[in-house]
């Protein structure tokens, strides 16, 4: 029994895959807390598709720099969403829908017209954890370090800006700059993990660990820690199970996350649901240009 369980660890590609899956789960769980609490759960779905569009488009013009191009494409999309949400009457969900689907469609249209599919394109779509290169691992580690430095280094300011952006602004937090920095980190995190779980599943790993953590605690600090641990565990266990089940790793990682959600829901019951009930509401600032009823 134990020999069977340890068998995959004899392969170096699996060891590497296990490490990358755990790290990806940790990174998405860590960043996902802010996404979920901002009521922007859909952004993971949108940005991953947007970046996929970027992959497709950039491959046509500079295939050797596809990662850099896709990163810039993703960052531009994230900043556009942030800008549209802040400056107009359009809510975050609608802005995400418009900007990212347009980006995705543009990339696919360019690709359909001029391109042919290549490995980077396929990997971005479905994820290819076992074929991950050393460069991609270094990229993932670098983005993880960047995310930790940004989030912990600006912990209170980020918490304040997420909870109550208008008062945060008055209290000396440069909310716009902080949001822009966070969007860049988010885009890079999605890009770095796309090859692990694939476009269609990266959104789930941004949201599931954070929602499960929210169901377990009422403290922000504990939620951040729990979400990271849950993301790590889902990544590692999902990777492990995918070996035995013979299904893609990304699929199994998300299925493990969904199973954890169901178990925690069953344990916490109504209390957990009450805690996570407000995750789709966000007390945003008064959007300049939009008269509020109280004015």
């Amino acid at each position, binding site marked *: 029994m134990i020999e069977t369980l340890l068998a995959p660890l004899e392969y170096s590609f699996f060891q590497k895959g296990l490490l990358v899956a755990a790290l990806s789960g940790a990174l998405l769980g860590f960043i996902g807390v802010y996404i979920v609490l901002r009521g922007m759960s859909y952004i993971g779905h949108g940005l991953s598709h947007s970046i996929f569009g970027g992959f497709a488009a950039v491959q046509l013009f500079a295939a050797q720099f596809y990662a850099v191009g896709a990163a810039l494409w993703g960052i531009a999309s994230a900043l556009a969403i942030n800008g549209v949400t802040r400056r107009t009457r359009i809510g975050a969900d609608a802005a995400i829908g418009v900007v990212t689907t347009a980006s995705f469609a543009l990339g696919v249209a360019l690709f359909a017209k001029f391109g042919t599919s290549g490995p980077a394109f396929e990997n971005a779509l479905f994820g290819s954890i076992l074929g991950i290169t050393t460069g991609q691992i270094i990229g993932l580690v670098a983005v993880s370090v960047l995310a930790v430095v940004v989030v*912990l280094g600006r912990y209170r300011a980020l918490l304040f800006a*997420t909870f109550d952006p208008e008062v945060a602004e008055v209290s000396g937090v440069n909310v716009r700059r902080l949001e822009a920095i966070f969007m860049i980190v988010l885009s890079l995190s999605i890009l770095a993990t796309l090859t692990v779980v694939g476009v269609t599943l990266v959104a789930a790993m941004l949201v599931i660990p954070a929602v499960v953590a929210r169901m377990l605690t009422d403290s922000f600090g504990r939620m951040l820690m729990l979400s990271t641990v849950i993301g790590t565990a889902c990544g590692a266990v999902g990777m492990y199970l995918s070996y035995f089940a013979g299904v893609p790793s990304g699929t199994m990682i998300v299925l493990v996350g969904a199973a954890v959600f169901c178990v925690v829901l069953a344990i916490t019951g109504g209390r957990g649901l009450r805690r996570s009930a407000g995750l789709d509401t966000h007390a945003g600032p008064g959007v300049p240009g939009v008269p509020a009823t*109280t004015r």
Partner: protein
Amino acid sequence: MTGTGVGPELIRLTGVNAAYGHHTVIQDVSFHVHEDQFTGIVGPSGSGKTTLLRILLGTMRQSTGAVVRQQGLKVAYVPQLETINWNFPVTVAECVLMARPQRGLFPRTTPQDRRDVARVLDRLGIAELGERHIRDLSGGQQQRMFLARALLRDPQILLLDEPTSGVDITTRHDMLHLLAELHEDGIAIVLTTHDLNGMAAHLPHLVCLNHRVVGEGTPAEVLTPDVLEVTFGARMEVLEHLGMRVIIDEAPQQRTA
């Protein structure tokens, strides 16, 4: 309660206009806040109260006119309770501590941070609630928590948006007394309200606003039928009871009689 404002000037607005797109919300507003001022900005919904508050806060820019703030002015703001996501995962202590800038790369709560949070929570009578989730507080306790967060910044001026909106009579009384105490401690206070009898009539200084300043002065000076009619667009009767102004909204049949 004093507070009509004779001390050093903290903020001065001169001929300020503000708009959202092409929709002008406040017109030609001139108004100043002094160090010992306790002012209520009174007006109906949509009259520009929150916009004026945002200009005082500096989170919104005027389209024309001048806003001058004392250099290094420390401002704190208490938002409307209705704008907050009360299911957000923070405890009372975590919420209060947001106002304290982080020092260093690691988000460590220092012993000094803990002492200061305990001090302001104690000052506002909610010392025992620090570990409670914000959703588990009453309306009055939620207001006190935000006041505690504001006080952690050691402000010279405190701005509050509709602090008694949606709270019961007891909580409203508590809030008035608490604000009076903070004012006595030397904090200038400016708040918005549309509650004439429950709030405005008790304040030492009022600015009646309906896109422009309709009247400014003590309640005895501005809570008059003429000023209120221009401010609220409805005829009101003003009575005197134990030295306080009591405003009665005239019924439609009285208006037409």
